[in-house]
């Protein structure tokens, strides 16, 4: 059987400025729009990309515009993989997310109202991995195209 090599669909960088996550989500959405994701799953991927990019801008690169966030979109078989890289090294990109968000504790004032980013990402995509290589810190978001009705929540 012939193995099809992963295909790089797009790479780009963004300045680490708050709000630039919107640019990332729009560009990734445009790149993957014809690859067979349902509307619901495309919306999930967009949210995951925005949250991961926000973390990279804020926690990884410290909102320093001169340090770019790198985004790469790859298709590997029936998987779309979005890699978002900052220069935060071992720094946890969700620095305020050491514990699982608990809405009741938040409403009672026992937990910060914030801290939803990684939680949302994990729940939006089929797989999430984080790797570090020296200073480079990458979050990998994987979404399968088509045939994924089993995890449609709607």
């Amino acid at each position: 059987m012939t193995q099809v090599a992963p295909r790089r669909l797009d790479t780009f960088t963004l300045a680490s400025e708050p709000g630039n996550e919107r640019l990332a989500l729009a560009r990734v959405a445009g790149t993957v729009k014809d690859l067979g994701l349902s509307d619901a799953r495309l919306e999930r991927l967009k949210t995951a990309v925005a949250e991961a990019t926000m973390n990279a801008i804020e926690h990884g690169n410290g909102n320093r515009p001169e340090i770019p966030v790198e985004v790469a979109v790859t298709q590997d078989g029936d998987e779309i993989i979005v890699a978002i890289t900052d220069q935060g090294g071992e720094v946890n990109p969700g620095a305020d997310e050491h514990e699982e968000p608990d809405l009741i504790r938040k409403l009672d004032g026992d937990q910060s109202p914030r801290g939803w980013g990684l939680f949302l990402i994990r729940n939006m995509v089929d797989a999430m991995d984080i790797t570090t290589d020296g200073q480079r810190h990458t979050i990998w978001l994987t979404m399968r195209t088509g045939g994924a009705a089993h995890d449609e929540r709607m």
Partner: protein
Amino acid sequence: MTSACEATTRALPGAAVIELSGEVDGSAAAVLTDAYERAVTASPENHDTVVLDFAAVDYINSTGIALIVSVLARARAERRKVVASGLSPHYREIFDITRLSDFIELFPDLDRAVSELTHPAA
């Protein structure tokens, strides 16, 4: 930070309505807090319920979710109910995942919310 969120408020019998538009993210904190304040102080005796209408909102992120949590916490402390209308299917899913929908009743649109609140089914 400049906010891309706008809010208008209006009073209905039994409910204060906050109609949001644009982007609900961290930069919307002052807009949302001010709107809540205006909504519940305009006619406080009528405002046991606050309706958040998201029909014209095109983006909510995790920091926006945090703001909604803060509004809900304040409303609960003041013994007010919060309901939401006009969320897209995607953001309804996020309200479910975060469990916000356990505490905020969701309506498809503002008309339905207002109708239910002003003429509740027997």
